[in-house]
C-alpha cells in the first residue's frame, strides 16, 4: 500500500503507448511503471543488493566468522568501531567469541535468505499444484482439497511452524519442511481463486474443445494466467518466512547452532543485552527488518501494478 505519486515526472510515454510503432514488451512497460514509485525502486535496489551480498558473503565479509583460527577471545564483545587484533576495524563490534559482527550478519543473511527462498519456492509449487488441480478437476477432489486448505488457514502460520519444528527437531531440511507446511495453504488458496475464475472463461473452454491434452491446457493456458496473484503472494510469503524463520531460530527451534541465521544471532545477543551490549542483537535485527521491509514494499508495488481494479 505504498502511496502512489501522481506528481512523478512523466518523461516516459504513457503505459501501453508505443514509441516507434512497435509494441513495447510488457516487462519493459511493467518496469517503467514500477520505476515511477521511487520508494519501491529504492526497496528493489536494497533487495537486490542484500541478495547479492548474501550470495557472495565469503568474498564480501571482512572475516570468515566461522574459521576459529582467525578469532581471538581478546576481541570478544567489543563495541562497534573497535580495532581488533586482526588489524581491521570491527564496524559493528564483535560477539562473544570475538568474531566480527558484520561478517556474522552477512553469513546469517545468507542462511536466512537461502532457507526462506527454498521454503517459498517449494510452498509455491505445492500450493499452486493443489489450487489449480482443485479448480480444474472440481467435484469431490475440489471439496476435500480446499476444505483442508481452509482448515489450515484458520490456524495461524506461526503456530503450525512452531509445532512442526518442535516435532521435527533442528536442522535445515526440518525447518524448510515446517515453513512449507505453514505456508503452502496461502498459495493454494490464491491459485484456487485465480484458477476458478480463469476456468470459466471462454479461452479455457475453447482450449478444452480442441484435442489438446489436459496437461497442456493446465500448463500452457491455465497456469500462466494464474501467475500474477501468485507472484504477489510469493513476495509476501518470502518476507514472512524470513520473519518466521528468525522467530523459530530465536526460540531455539529452528536451525542448529552450527548454522547461525539472523534470528539466532539476535538470540545469542539477547543474553548480553542486560549488560548494555546492545549491538549484538540490534544490528542483526536491523538487517532483518531492512530485508523484510524492502521485500514487502516491492511486493506492494507489484500488487498495485497487477491489480486491474486500481487501473484507470
Amino acid at each position, binding site marked *: 500500500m505504498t502511496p502512489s505519486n501522481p506528481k512523478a515526472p512523466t518523461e516516459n510515454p504513457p503505459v501501453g503507448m508505443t514509441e516507434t510503432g512497435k509494441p513495447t514488451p510488457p516487462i519493459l512497460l511493467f518496469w517503467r511503471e514500477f520505476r515511477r514509485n521511487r520508494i519501491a525502486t529504492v526497496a528493489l535496489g536494497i533487495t537486490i543488493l542484500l541478495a547479492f551480498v548474501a550470495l557472495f558473503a565469503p568474498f564480501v565479509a571482512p572475516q570468515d566468522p566461522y574459521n576459529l583460527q582467525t578469532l581471538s577471545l581478546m576481541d570478544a564483545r567489543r563495541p562497534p568501531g573497535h580495532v581488533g587484533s586482526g588489524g581491521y576495524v570491527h564496524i559493528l563490534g564483535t560477539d562473544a567469541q570475538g568474531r566480527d559482527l558484520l561478517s556474522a550478519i552477512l553469513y546469517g543473511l545468507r542462511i536466512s535468505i537461502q532457507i526462506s527462498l527454498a521454503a517459498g519456492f517449494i510452498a509455491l509449487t505445492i500450493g499452486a499444484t493443489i489450487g489449480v488441480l482443485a479448480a480444474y478437476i472440481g467435484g469431490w477432489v475440489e471439496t476435500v482439497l480446499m476444505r483442508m486448505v481452509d482448515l489450515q488457514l484458520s490456524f495461524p502460520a*506461526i503456530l503450525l511452524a512452531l509445532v512442526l519444528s*518442535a*516435532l521435527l527437531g533442528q536442522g535445515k531440511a526440518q525447518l524448510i519442511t515446517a515453513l512449507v507446511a505453514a505456508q503452502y495453504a496461502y498459495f493454494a488458496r490464491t491459485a484456487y481463486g485465480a484458477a476458478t475464475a480463469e476456468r470459466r472463461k471462454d479461452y479455457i473452454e475453447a482450449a478444452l474443445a480442441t484435442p489438446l491434452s489436459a496437461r497442456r491446457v493446465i500448463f500452457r493456458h491455465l497456469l500462466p494466467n494464474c501467475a500474477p496473484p501468485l507472484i504477489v503472494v510469493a513476495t509476501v510469503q518470502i518476507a514472512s518466512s524470513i520473519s518466521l524463520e528468525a522467530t523459530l531460530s*530465536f526460540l531455539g527451534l529452528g536451525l542448529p547452532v552450527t548454522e547461525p541465521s539472523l534470528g539466532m544471532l539476535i538470540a545469542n545477543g539477547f543474553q548480553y543485552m542486560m549488560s548494555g551490549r546492545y549491538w549484538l542483537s*540490534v544490528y542483526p535485527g536491523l538487517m532483518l*527488518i531492512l530485508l523484510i521491509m524492502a521485500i514487502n514494499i516491492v511486493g506492494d508495488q507489484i500488487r498495485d501494478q497487477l491489480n486491474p481494479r486500481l487501473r484507470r
Partner: protein
Amino acid sequence: MLAFIIQRALQAALVMVVMSMIVFLGVYAVGNPVDIVIPPDATIAMREEVIRRLGLDLPLWKQYGIFAWNLLQGDFGRSFIYNMPVLELIGGRLPATLELVLISILFATVTGVSLGIYAGVNPESRIAKLIMGLSILGFSVPSFWVGLILILTFAVHFGIFPAGGRGETVMVFGVEWSFLTANGLSHIVLPALNLALFKMAMMIRLARAGTREAMLSDTVKFARAAGISEATILRRHVLKLISIPIITVFGLELGSTLAFAVVTETIFSWPGVGKLIIDSITVLDRPVMVAYLVLTAFVFVMINFTVDLVFALIDPRIRSGRQKS
C-alpha cells in the same frame, strides 16, 4: 438453520478427531520419553516397570485409544517433569496468558481503530501518513525483535519498566492476577505492548479502509446534509459501519494472539502457557505438548465454529451458499 448448525458441529468434531490423531502421532515420533523419565542408572526391571506404567509398551493404536478416551473424560495425563496432572498445570498458567492476551488485544483494538479512523478521515494529512508508515513497520518488524528493543529501551536504558516476570499478583476468585496491583501492572506493560503492535497495525489498516469507504456512503452524506456534526457522524454512523469486519477480525485474532503469546512470553519470561510449552518442547515433556496442542486446536475450532454461526445469523446467504457446496 438447525441443519447448518448440526453440519458445522459435526465438521468441528471431525476436525478435533483428526487433530488429536495428528498431534498424538507427531508427538509420539519425537525422542524417547523413557530416557527422560528414567534415570540412566536404573535397572532393566525398573525400566520395564515404568514403561508398563506409562503404557508405552502397548501398540500405537491402543495407546491412541486410551489417550482419546481419557481426553473425552478431561484427563490429559500427568506431566513427566512436574509430575502433576497436565490440566492442572496448564490451568495454573492460563490466567497469566489470558490476562496478557486480553489486555493487549483490547489495547490494540482501541488504539488501532481510533488511529485508523483518523487516518481514514484525513487520508492526506502528515499524521495519517505517519500512522500508515508505522503500521507498515508493525507488519514488517518481527515481533520478537520489537520485544528486545522494548526491553533495551524501557528496561535497560531508562529503567522505567521491569524486563520480565509477572510481578506481584492478587488473588481474586481463587486466581492470581497481575493487572490489579501497581507492580503487576508495570510488569505487564511491555509484554502487552509487544503483543499488541502487530494487531494494532492490522486494526489501523482495517479501520482506515473501512472509514474511507464509509465516508463516501449515502448514510454519511445524508447525515452531513442533516447538519449532524462530524464527531457525531464518526461516532454514531462510521463506527457502526466499520464495526462488522473489526469484530470479525477481533474474534479471529484472539486465537492468533494466543499463538503469538508464545514468543512474547518467552522474551519477557512471562509465566504463562506459552512459556510452559516452549519449556516442555525443550525437555520433551510429551503429555504437556499434546495437551497444549489439543487444547489450542479446540480453541481454534470453537472460534471458527462461533464465527461461522454468527455470520450465518447475520447473513442468510451464507447458510444457503454453504449447503450447496
